[in-house]
């Protein structure tokens, strides 16, 4: 696939369709991939890569890139295309300035995931059939590809591209049986005390590095309320457990109905807080209360929170359980 993408990128650069390419750049090891803009064929040859470690969602970069001179080629994975569509809907990306090529994704892995499986000192990796052969400081290790998948890829909702100008490889399909709400359900089944304890344990680790917010394609505000002293709720490092709760509740609320469930927030969290469980709770509730809705599936529909029906459920559904 990487070769196919390289050839396509070069072709489009050559014929002037685009003047630069947004893709992934190889790093020092196998897993430290960096999103990058390539402006020439030499750049592409020097660093362009596409493999099972290219997990970054590139869509958010297009807010900036689509406002530059000329057209940019963007390689988007299925889940990136949902974010892309959502950003189009919110007028954050100038569609005409982007040439989207959909690229297939079989699920990604990353350094953290491999390390969590007990792999130490990763130097390189290559794929062989269903296995990943990892070269480490302490010898070679093998891991089945399924085991190497990141948590978010295990509950992948769709391998279909919802938007593209051109598609490379086979088009995938939505994955209806993705079980992505299982963890949410598990939490819902707990008692409030248990849930509170769980979330305190998780959120108290937050160091407010803002990686979740800054990587999130839905968090595209020019200035975040939490950075704006005039908002009255600005904060830096959480100085009280309340502020930890506040930041994450409000952030989840602000992206509710707009979050495409790409999973970047949990991927980047240096403290490994399962932030996607907050967003998924909103997605699950929205599906249950207002009908199934997938943010980013299209560019026209009204988001659930800017929409209503006359007979929506009453808020009492939360504390009375089902009473309309």
């Amino acid at each position, binding site marked *: 696939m990487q070769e196919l993408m390289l050839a396509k990128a070069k072709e489009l650069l050559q014929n002037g369709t685009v003047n630069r390419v947004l893709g992934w750049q190889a790093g020092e090891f196998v897993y430290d991939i960096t999103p990058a803009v390539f402006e020439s064929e030499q750049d592409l040859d020097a660093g362009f890569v596409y493999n099972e470690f290219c997990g970054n969602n590139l869509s958010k970069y297009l807010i900036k890139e689509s406002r530059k001179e000329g057209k940019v080629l963007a390689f988007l994975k299925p889940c990136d295309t949902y974010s892309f569509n959502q950003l189009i809907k919110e007028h954050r990306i100038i569609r005409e300035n982007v040439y989207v090529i959909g690229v297939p994704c079989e699920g990604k892995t990353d350094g953290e995931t491999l390390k969590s499986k007990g792999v130490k000192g990763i130097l390189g990796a290559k794929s062989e059939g269903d296995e990943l052969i990892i070269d480490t400081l302490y010898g070679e290790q093998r891991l089945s590809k399924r085991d190497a998948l990141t948590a978010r890829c295990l509950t992948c909702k769709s391998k279909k591209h919802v938007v593209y100008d051109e598609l490379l490889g086979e088009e995938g399909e939505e994955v209806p049986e993705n079980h992505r709400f299982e963890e949410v359900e598990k939490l819902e089944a707990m008692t409030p005390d248990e849930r509170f304890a769980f979330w305190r344990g998780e959120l108290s680790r937050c160091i407010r590095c803002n990686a979740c917010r800054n990587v999130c394609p839905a968090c*595209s505000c020019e200035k975040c309320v939490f950075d704006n002293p005039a908002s009255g709720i600005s904060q830096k490092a959480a100085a009280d457990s309340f502020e930890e709760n506040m930041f994450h509740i409000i952030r989840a609320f602000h992206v509710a109905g707009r979050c495409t469930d790409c999973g970047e927030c949990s991927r980047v969290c240096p403290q490994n807080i399962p932030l996607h469980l907050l967003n998924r709770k909103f997605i699950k509730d929205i599906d249950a209360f207002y009908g199934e809705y997938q943010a980013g599936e299209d560019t026209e529909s009204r988001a659930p929170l800017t929409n209503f029906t006359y007979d929506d459920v009453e808020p009492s559904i939360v504390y009375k359980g089902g009473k309309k």
Partner: protein
Amino acid sequence: MQRIGVFVCWCGSNIAATVDVAAVSEALGHEPGVVFSTNYQYMCSEAGQNIIKNAIRDYQLTGIVVCSCSPRMHEATFRKTAASAGLNSYMVEIANIREQCSWIHKDKAQATEKAIILGRAAIAKVHLNAPLTAGESPVTKRALVIGGGIAGIQTALDIADAGFEVDIVEKQPTIGGKMTQIDKTFPTLDCAACILTPKMVDCAQNDKINIFAYSEVKEVKGFVGNFHVKINKKARYVDATKCTGCGECTEKCPMKKIPNEFNLGLDNRHAIYIPFAQAVPKVATIDPNACNMLKNGKCGLCAKVCSAGAIDYKQKDEIVEREYGAIVVATGYNPIKLDDYDEYAYSLSKDVVSSLEFERITNAAGPTGGTLLRPSDGKHPHTLVFVQCVGSRCSAEGKGKSYCSKICCMYTAKHAMLCREKYPDTEVYVFYIDVRSPGKNYDEFYRRAVEEYGVHYIKGQVGKVVPRSDGKLLVQGSDLLANEQVHIEADMVVLAAAIEPDKSARPLATMLTASMDTNDFFTEAHAKLRPVESPTAGIFLSGACQGPKDIPDTVAQAGAAASKVIGLLAKDKLTCNPCTAHSDEMMCNGCSSCEKVCPYGAISYVDKEFRMPNRTTAIRRVAVVNEAVCQGCGACTVACPSGAMDLKGFSNSQIMAEVDAICKM
């Protein structure tokens, strides 16, 4: 830092009996920023107001808090007081210590404590208040009426009568609407044309009224008092200023097998046509889909016969741009399509007709010249079955409309009655679910049909209509009162089709940012109290576009809409509510969330150039609130994730300051 004055009212004993007012004014006097605090028996009295005025002057107050009754009672009073002392009236806050304190508590200590807290909250808010000035916008003294049926005509006439200019935009070649197709009107049985056509002529002759027939609204910009509208005048291929309506062309035109819309396709017209004799404007129109000259460049006969030289095959659609202060929607209704009701055999037999088709068949100007004849064979029918509620009151999905179409009971009674009157040899059956006849002389009318004219009313619905080879229609229905299934061999079946809003209404509503219900009827601003206004300021509703209506109701509503328009156009300037939303463009992302939740269409977007670091610039899409249209609900402020959108008078920081003051531990 504000200099705040606090005025605690006793309200006689209403407050003072339960709240220690002296303690309240004493405690609030120590709050930061408070430079004056007092209490008085009746703050709203002249003496009380003078205390406030004097304090504003003597202490150079920049904000005041009145602890008194509900702001719904005296906020306006104290705002005026402040203004008369030179303080901006929006620098006033009321702490409601009567309805929400003294009157609901008995324990004096508790009530006093609560009054102090409510006072603190008001003080906290005043600290963040900013002077607000109500903006003004000019009013263009001209109204647009969209739709030229009886609703639009009546509205236009009434507005013109008050001396204001009105434009009527009608998509058909003539104004008049559905009423032109109707034969007689219930419950008086006057001839519809006799009462309608004079009004049409009045419109044409009134120099305040300008008719854009064969035209459609293409774009609406602006807001109340200042709408900019683009109207597309479709090409008629006839110069309306030259055409005399003599009709020479329509007789000579060789293309004469075009189904006549006016008679619902029951007969034919020519490619160049005048819909009916009393059309206004009485100008011929060439149907571009039928005219051989326009399609193939061959013919040109009409141009040859036209002595006025009015034919212009090169005519193009023309966009007219006009300014209006108010817009009235009068887009009316249509009967639903009956093709899906195969149980009634509508698409199988020509003798199963809709009620509107039946109107044409019985109309003297109709295809049969007013003689009741079966469409299939032109024979006189002896047995007629009327079926009510076809497609109305259907809650089952996909089967019709959930609402009652309101007019069918009465016109069916009219049809049945007229049949029996003109042709006593006919048997007329009406299948009904309920007969709904609430209206002046309506029930009497329906009873006359039964009692005087011997129409057979059967409580029940028709299950199926089967056309037989001998031309009869076998009607199978149930008679619920007799508890039997009845079978009638009918010659004609007339279906009272449900009515629905015109298809053009939905896109129009989008252009107008006027809200609609799920059935595509326009929503009124208040179901009871503002029935002819749309929630969108400056948009008014007339006739069946708002809900099913008969002619008397439509005319009444048309007049009401006109009076609302006149009230608006009579003003030179509109004063805006100053508590409006406003967007901080430095923070706005242009994401459109706010626009989606705005019920008034007050938010639009502009691409704006911003200075960026290092002497660069960037163009960003940002929201702009039209303060003349915004009503200050605040829905947008919560939809906005970045907090760029805020509401004057109820800003985020003001409300949070109140929260802080109330919750202080």
